[in-house]
């Protein structure tokens, strides 16, 4: 049996980092900021969580530090794109590239190793019922984000800011404030995603260990139309793809081919959604 509970568990574990990052991306999207720096923020979270857990012995401090570090890193996007009105895409790509270099550099200077830091005494996150607490947190975050966006005053204002910042500003709502809030929250969520990856899915840090999960989260935001439930379903699709990749490896397929599974699914999903959007008839002008 190919689709069994093992596969599902493995998919849910793969889901968590992507889901957390994608929720952050969705908040930014709703606030009118295209955040493609999720990958870089997540990687900062990975390194910070491992370093903090190693030096303090507490994975919880590692999680906290990861959230703070990634939030601080997200300020690059907030200041650059919102305050200085730079191009969010350029900034996001720069953040992703910088994070790879910065964490590799820190790996060498702090731990004196290259490639991977791995030690049996590095404390990872405990498992409760097979999942880390962060996994449960990520599911709760879907519900909270959905409620926040659809019903809460903050969410309504955020959606308005994202859709028509001028209109929001004329009503005394500062678009910059809400955009900063969304970006910082995405930083926190990406930090948690990184901690989950480095202290939950595995217990180690390796250079560029996010391996495109942040990009997949960006696609999940687009695929899920930046709605928390949509993002959950999209992220679940990628989690399944990743888990299925492992499984196929067990069936003797070469690892290089199976590792490609989530990316192939991403490409397919992008193709299908953009094709669907292109076909949808453009709305006509006012119908009297």
């Amino acid at each position, binding site marked *: 049996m190919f689709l069994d509970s093992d596969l599902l568990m493995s998919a849910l574990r793969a889901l968590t980092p992507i889901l957390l990052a994608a929720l952050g991306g969705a908040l930014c999207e709703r606030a009118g900021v295209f955040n493609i720096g999720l990958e870089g923020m997540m990687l900062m979270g990975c390194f910070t969580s491992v370093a903090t857990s190693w030096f303090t012995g507490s994975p919880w401090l590692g999680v906290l530090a990861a959230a703070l570090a990634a939030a601080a890193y997200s300020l690059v996007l907030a200041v650059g794109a919102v305050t200085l009105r730079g191009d969010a895409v350029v900034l996001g790509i720069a953040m992703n590239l910088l994070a790879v270099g910065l964490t590799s550099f820190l790996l060498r200077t702090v731990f004196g190793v290259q490639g991977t830091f791995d030690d049996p005494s590095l404390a990872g996150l405990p498992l409760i019922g097979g999942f880390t607490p962060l996994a449960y947190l990520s599911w709760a975050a879907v519900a909270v984000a959905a*409620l926040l966006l659809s*019903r*809460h*005053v903050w969410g*309504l*204002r955020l*959606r*308005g800011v994202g*859709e*028509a910042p*001028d*209109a*929001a500003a*004329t*009503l*005394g*709502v500062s678009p910059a404030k809400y955009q900063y809030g969304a970006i910082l929250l995405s930083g926190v969520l990406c930090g948690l995603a990184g901690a989950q990856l480095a202290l939950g899915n595995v217990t180690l840090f390796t250079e560029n260990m996010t391996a495109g999960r942040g990009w997949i989260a960006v696609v999940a935001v687009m695929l899920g139309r930046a709605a928390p439930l949509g993002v959950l379903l999209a992220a679940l699709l990628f989690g399944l793809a990743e888990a299925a990749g492992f499984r196929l490896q067990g069936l003797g397929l070469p690892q290089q081919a199976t590792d490609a599974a989530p990316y192939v699914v991403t490409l397919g999903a992008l193709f299908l959604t953009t094709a669907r959007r292109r076909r949808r008839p*453009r*709305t*006509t*002008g*006012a*119908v*009297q």
Partner: protein
Amino acid sequence: MTPPPPENFAVELRGITKRFPGTLANDAVDLTVRHGEIHALMGENGAGKSTLMSVLYGMERADAGSIRIDGREVRFTSPSDAMAAGLGMVHQSFKLFDSLTVAENVVYAAEPRRFGLVDRAAARRRVRELADEHGLAVDPEARVGDLPVGLRQRVEILKLLHRGARTLILDEPTAVLTPAEADSLFGVLKSLTARGRTVVLVTHKLREVLEGSDRVTVLRDGRVAARLVTSDTTADEIAAAMTGRAVELDRVHAPGTPGEAVLRVTGFSTDSVHDVDLSVHAGEIVGVAGVAGNGQSKLVEALAGLRPVAAGRVTLLGADITHASATERRLKGLAYVPEDRHAVGTAPAASVADNLAMGHHRTTLSTRGLLPPAAVRAHARRLVERFGIKAATTEVPASALSGGNLQKLLIGRELAHEAPLLLVEQPTRGVDIGAIQNIHDQLIAYRDAGHAVLLVSAELSEIRGLADRVLVLYEGRVAASYAKEEADERTLGLAMAGAPAEATHEHEPPDTSPRT
């Protein structure tokens, strides 16, 4: 004018002066608006209306002068301050959130809450209450993006009422409305003032001011040119105050003498345009009336070759151009004045000379594939003189020209092709009264020289003044067609709103009518 008696005004601006680099936008302007009146603020483009309203609404700070609201002196540093003082503005381009519902738009940033969540039931109730009270019926649950323009405007007004605005400022509110919607808007405004609210109407439309306002303040060149009581004034008096000279308004030009068909369109369909038949003859202006978004732009764009044709046949001087490219059409004898003169009609960053050369580059100006700069300059000087385009030099960028002058440039460039067929959209939108007359005279002269003109305009007075025949487009179809003398505003207005057409006949002149 005698000074007004000492009383509490809803809005009282005294000696407002606002300088921008190079211009004095407002020069010691006084504006007093009484409680419960509809006060029209009029003036041509650049007369200082927008600046004055920006100062009043806290978007600009005046260099001198004072503002009193209900007798209390105020200093606004942002629109929020102005709103807190009981002002509310409906901007010309609406400030709405298309994906949100009517109720969400109305309560945005002033939400009724329960436990930090938006109380949606209370929001809907609030919208219904306000709507019932003021005759602004609109479904609170509808998505704003799905609403027609007239209803969106209601949402804007509801938004202000929800915030407790006592004085509403409406900037060119009827620019986008059908005549029927405009009438309904004025009904709403009258009911608002009857309930003690005050309305400031910023507009350049004389008819509305005469029908809908109590008093008028006219600005010209940043100063108050006249303060008038509407019931004691005439359109001519207001127009003279706006322009500083006597103007002949709403002139209806003598009909032309149509010759052979130049453009023939049969069974024509494109995106949002269905099964249109029309023809335009030499020496004739055919007007296309319709509320924005009923297909007239798309029809003209398709005729100009900018949009693929789904079905039907188009001939120009007998040659089939149904699938011809824009260039081929132009070479066969078509000129085109597009609706959007900034983004489509001209290249704002390019010089006046270059803009005037565009299109002519492939015919008269080109020598062995090159454009001799001397020829381009000479061509520009000729057109600048012939069409009275006011530009410092022909080398300044087109973006430096005022709207009216840019339009003269665009129309001049296209008329200079002497093409047998001219397609012209909204030739005088946003153009001052003085320039309007000039443009109308040019179009009539062009027709009288034996050219065919297809005119699309949202201004009924323009259609009536210029067109020899009028077609009304409604939802992409020709809903009605009228001869010049039948096309009064009421008839056209009804047809534009989709009312079943009264008996309409085929008014097309015979193909070979003798020139008289």
